[in-house]
């Protein structure tokens, strides 16, 4: 304590007027203001980056959800498609796409003629307007409806990637000059078809449902197999990691004795959460494929690997949720003679439920977006066949996954795949958004309001 004396007037530091901030207060206020400003700048930068990311993905990817198609009247020549004449789809299947290609080409020429469009392009160039995929499309339609044979039926076929790109603004007359795959004359013909009402752009359901297509047919590439594969994997992850993770956390948090061994486990679980995901891929390759002999590219293996990856996240979240339950609740239950297990399952677990569910869903969302480990277990393969239903062994059928499909699309040279990759990212983001909304919903629903 300093002793105030007559010649030290500063000994009463708070004597000044309250109407005027003294130097120290002003400095302190300025410091606080600066700190708030820094925080605001940081938040704004974050939001700006997010907005930029969304804009870049949406501008590049939204067009993937629209697809240009051409309506062609195809004369389905009975002699070529059904030589036996009994409309048996099994026998008709012996006619390959090579048998259908000339019909489609004839149909296209006749359709253009019937619409009164003049063109001096050779027939081969005109046929390039439609996708190579459309022959297979036509064959599938005919085999599904054999009664169509012999008639001239209108068929909606995919326009080729470049034509599709032209109507989405990706291809222009200038770029067509330099492009060996497309010429300005073909674009003009496409415009004429559009004016005749034969070419149109609509919502692209095939992008969501169809399987992947070869790298020369970006217009036909879809996410069907990838979405199914991802869904199957999430099923495996949920079924395995939720019970194992929650059981492990309850044991560690509520029952395990506190000793060096449990400390070691605890440290290792935290460390596992930080292990690079590709390491789990190597582990999966070594154990599930090489040792256990499970098939490559199968959702079951992907699901098992992602389970290993998700478990630490779920365990950490669950333990945090259990720890957050006030100990007075445990005391109350134990105090009236509940056993440890009754106290946990009747009182602690219900209160921890929102936290557990949120942790689980966030773990699942993390697993949904994971790519690296899947590359190692063969899920990067080109898969055109849908896997069977899970109860028919579909978990063991080859499939891909959404993030891997994005990676796959970006590896291909055709610029149309940029649009497809961004579109796939949008689909992935929508799934993540749905899962996060589910997490919020479940948290609200289970939260005790009393």
């Amino acid at each position, binding site marked *: 304590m300093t002793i105030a004396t007559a010649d030290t007037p500063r000994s009463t530091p708070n004597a000044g007027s309250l109407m005027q901030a003294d130097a120290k207060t002003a400095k302190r206020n300025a410091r606080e203001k600066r700190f708030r400003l820094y925080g605001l700048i940081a938040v704004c930068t974050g939001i700006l980056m997010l907005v930029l990311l969304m804009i870049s993905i949406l501008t590049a990817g939204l067009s993937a959800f629209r697809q240009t198609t051409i309506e062609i009247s195809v004369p389905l020549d009975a002699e070529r498609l059904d030589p036996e004449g009994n409309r048996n789809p099994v026998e008709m299947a012996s006619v390959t796409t090579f048998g259908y290609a000339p019909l489609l080409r004839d149909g296209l020429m006749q359709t253009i003629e019937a619409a009164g469009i003049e063109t001096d392009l050779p027939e081969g160039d005109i046929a390039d307007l439609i996708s190579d995929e459309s022959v297979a499309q036509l064959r599938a339609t005919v085999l599904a409806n054999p009664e169509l044979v012999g008639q001239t039926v209108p068929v909606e076929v995919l326009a080729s990637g470049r034509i599709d790109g032209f109507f989405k603004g990706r291809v222009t007359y200038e770029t067509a000059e330099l492009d060996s795959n497309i010429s300005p004359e073909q674009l003009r013909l496409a415009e004429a078809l559009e004016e005749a009402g034969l070419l149109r752009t609509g919502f692209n359901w095939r992008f969501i449902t169809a399987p992947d297509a070869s790298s020369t047919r970006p217009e036909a590439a879809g996410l069907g197999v990838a979405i199914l594969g991802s869904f199957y994997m999430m099923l495996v992850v949920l079924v395995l990691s939720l019970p194992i993770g929650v059981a492990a956390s309850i044991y560690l948090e509520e029952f395990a004795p506190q000793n060096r061994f449990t400390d070691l486990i605890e440290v290792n679980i935290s460390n596992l959460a930080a292990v690079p995901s590709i390491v789990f891929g190597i582990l999966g390759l070594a154990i599930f494929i090489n040792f256990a002999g499970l098939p490559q590219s199968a959702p079951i293996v992907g699901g098992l690997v992602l389970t290993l990856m998700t478990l630490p996240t779920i365990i950490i979240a669950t333990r945090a949720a259990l720890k957050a339950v006030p100990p007075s609740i445990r005391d*109350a239950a134990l105090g009236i*003679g*509940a056993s440890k297990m009754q106290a946990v399952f009747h009182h602690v677990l219900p209160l921890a439920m929102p936290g557990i569910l949120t942790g689980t869903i966030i773990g699942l969302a993390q697993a949904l977006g994971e790519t690296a480990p899947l590359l190692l277990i063969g899920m990067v393969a080109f898969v055109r066949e849908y896997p069977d239903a899970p109860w028919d062994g579909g978990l063991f059928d080859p499939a891909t996954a959404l993030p891997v499909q994005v990676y796959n699309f970006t590896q291909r040279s055709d610029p149309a795949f940029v649009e497809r990759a961004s579109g796939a990212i949008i689909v992935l983001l929508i799934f993540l958004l749905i899962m996060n909304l589910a997490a919020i919903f479940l948290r609200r629903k289970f939260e005790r309001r009393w």
Partner: protein
Amino acid sequence: MNDMRFVERTVGNEEVKIAARGVHVYYGDTHAIKDVNIDIADKMVTAFIGPSGCGKSTFLRCINRMNDTIPIARIEGDIMIDGEDIYDRRVDPVQLRAKVGMVFQKPNPFPKSIYDNVAYGPKIHGLARNKAELDEIVETSLRRAALWDEVKDRLQAPGTGLSGGQQQRLCIARAVATSPEVLLMDEPCSALDPIATDQVENLIHELRERYSVVIVTHSMSQASRVSQRTAYFHLGEMVEYGETGDIFTNPRDQRTENYITGRIG
């Protein structure tokens, strides 16, 4: 302390319910309870008083083995209830705690309905064969806790929505619902206002007819109001134990006198 009214000391029952012999408690290296010997009588309210950290709550938690939940706690000596050593290897603490109910310092109702709060104990111990019996147990327990009239119309309302005093009485109802023989109360009124405290104290009076009640309290006036016998704890030792009137008017030990006259604690 002249205006203090002491509880009528009609000590007709001298049957010993709880007997502690040479009890020591260690928390790791801390020696929390040092050689406590005490005989607690049945159908009587026994108060433990003493300054903070003197070990009275610790000793209380030994009586229903709640200290078992603390991994570092170690207990030596014998505590007998009705002549049976509760720390015997054969004793299951879960069974013991059904016999020795406990009310905690902070009201801690389950985040469930009032009915479920009271019915939980009877349910897990299988005390009711059907819904009607359970309803009856809930009603009697709530009546014993002097809460029935206030909550009978809203048994399905959440227990945590009650006022502090009501919550504590709900906890008492929950504790008596399992038909215990001993009721331990760890500063049951420290979080309550004077009116709620009065209600709980009146309740303790009535509970005494059926149970052996042990209450830990910071408030000496409360000890003098509700208890027949008082034990004074100091730094882990039980310094003095006797009739409440004697302890407050004529303490034998200097430390007890210092405490009750307000010189320490």
